């Protein structure tokens, strides 16, 4: 147990900050995912064939390739691309892109694909009458979207978004391969220096279980709150 104590001798404080890092990356990834979803959901629902294909390509490709691949591509490819751009401007040194940014972006792109599907499903399940009624009332297109469609869409998507959140939370463990010190990476370091992998990976597993458990509780509360309108 003393391995988990806070301070210089134990790994308690390191693991605590690593847990905060996991939460931070997950939230950042989720937010980035929302941005992607808000861009690609209209594309997937659009009647324009080209836009439709672009939207479908995004969700199909991202959901069809391993998460690790997206991370590697951004991590190794991102550095290369940044150095290439910099070399055009005459800078030849080595550029390292922040592991947090690449990690959050990679996981964000992935969770965005799942969120897109969730939003699409939610919009499709909104009653047709809602669209017609708001049109009849003479609401402008963007007011119709913000005041009528968006609130209902968010409400309908909460249960499925909670799944996306769980997936995102677990996916952040993969960022450890790029060196960002979150739960997984910290346990790896601790396991390496104490030669007790069984203990530290069990701790990591418990930390993830606590995170998933707590987020389930919070999401359930949200769900109850947003169901009130129905």
């Amino acid at each position, binding site marked *: 147990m003393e391995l988990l104590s806070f301070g210089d001798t134990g790994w308690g404080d390191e693991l605590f900050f690593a847990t905060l890092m996991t939460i931070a990356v997950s939230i950042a990834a989720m937010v980035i995912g929302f941005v992607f979803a808000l861009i690609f959901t209209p594309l997937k629902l659009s009647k324009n064939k080209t836009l439709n294909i672009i939207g479908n390509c995004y969700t*199909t*490709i991202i*959901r*069809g*390739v*391993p*998460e*690790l*691949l997206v991370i*590697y*591509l951004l991590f*190794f*490819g991102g550095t*290369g691309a940044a150095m290439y751009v910099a070399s055009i401007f005459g800078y030849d040194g080595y550029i390292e892109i922040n592991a947090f940014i690449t990690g959050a972006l990679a996981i964000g792109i992935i969770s965005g694909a799942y969120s897109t599907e969730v939003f699409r499903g939610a919009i499709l399940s909104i009653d047709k009458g809602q669209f017609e009624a708001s049109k009849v009332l003479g609401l402008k297109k963007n007011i119709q979207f913000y005041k009528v469609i968006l609130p209902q869409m968010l409400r309908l998507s909460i249960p499925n978004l909670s799944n996306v959140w769980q997936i995102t939370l*677990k*996916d*952040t*463990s*993969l960022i*450890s*391969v790029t060196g960002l010190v979150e739960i*997984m990476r910290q*346990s*790896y370091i601790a*396991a390496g220096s104490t030669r*007790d*992998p*069984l*203990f530290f*990976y*069990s701790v*990591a*597993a418990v930390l*993830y*279980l606590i995170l*998933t*458990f707590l987020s389930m509780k919070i999401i359930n509360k949200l769900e109850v709150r947003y169901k009130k309108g129905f």
Partner: protein
Amino acid sequence: MISIFPSLLNGTVITLKLLVSSMFFGLLIGLLFAILRINKNPIINKFAYGYSYFFRGTPLLVQLYLIYYGLANIEFLRNSILWVIIREPYWCAIIAFSLNTGAYTSEILRSAFQTIKEGYIEAAKSLGVTKQITFFKIQIPIAIKQSLPAYGNEIILMLKGTSLASVITIMDLMGEARKVNVLTFKPFEAFITAGIIYLFLTFIIHNIVKYLEKIYGFQT
């Protein structure tokens, strides 16, 4: 570009081997735990729930590390005959993937079992069919039929999951792509080619499942 294909194809074979064996063991584990989940005994029930909660609530990477690095830490296991299996990264990966997909499969099958209409079981009972035959001839076939779409998703998730084997030194498709990247410093070619192969595999699995759904008919 063409020169990297042979090594990636070797990796693909390993990926498929990992996928097929862990899906096979995972299905057996999933079926077992689904049966335990619908058991009325609260202890058995809780145990099965705990199993699926643990494996669905933690990342696959943690499970893989726990089995690959963690189990080797237990003196007792190292001296036993099991050491032959758990010292091989390949088998560790299969154990981790099977346990993981087993947990998801048990949930899929459990919900399928629970949606079987009571009427079927009652009808079998009134015809004097024994419990065992009802289970194997009525409940299991219907459950399999109903869970096909969800199970298809699980196969695809597992295909993506097998890419984690590369972090414990297995040269699967992902591992080969990493090696190409390190050797040639061409991340885009290596990873995009691997990505295309993964997409192709996903596409094939998707279509096979769709075909099976068509044959067996999705009905309740």
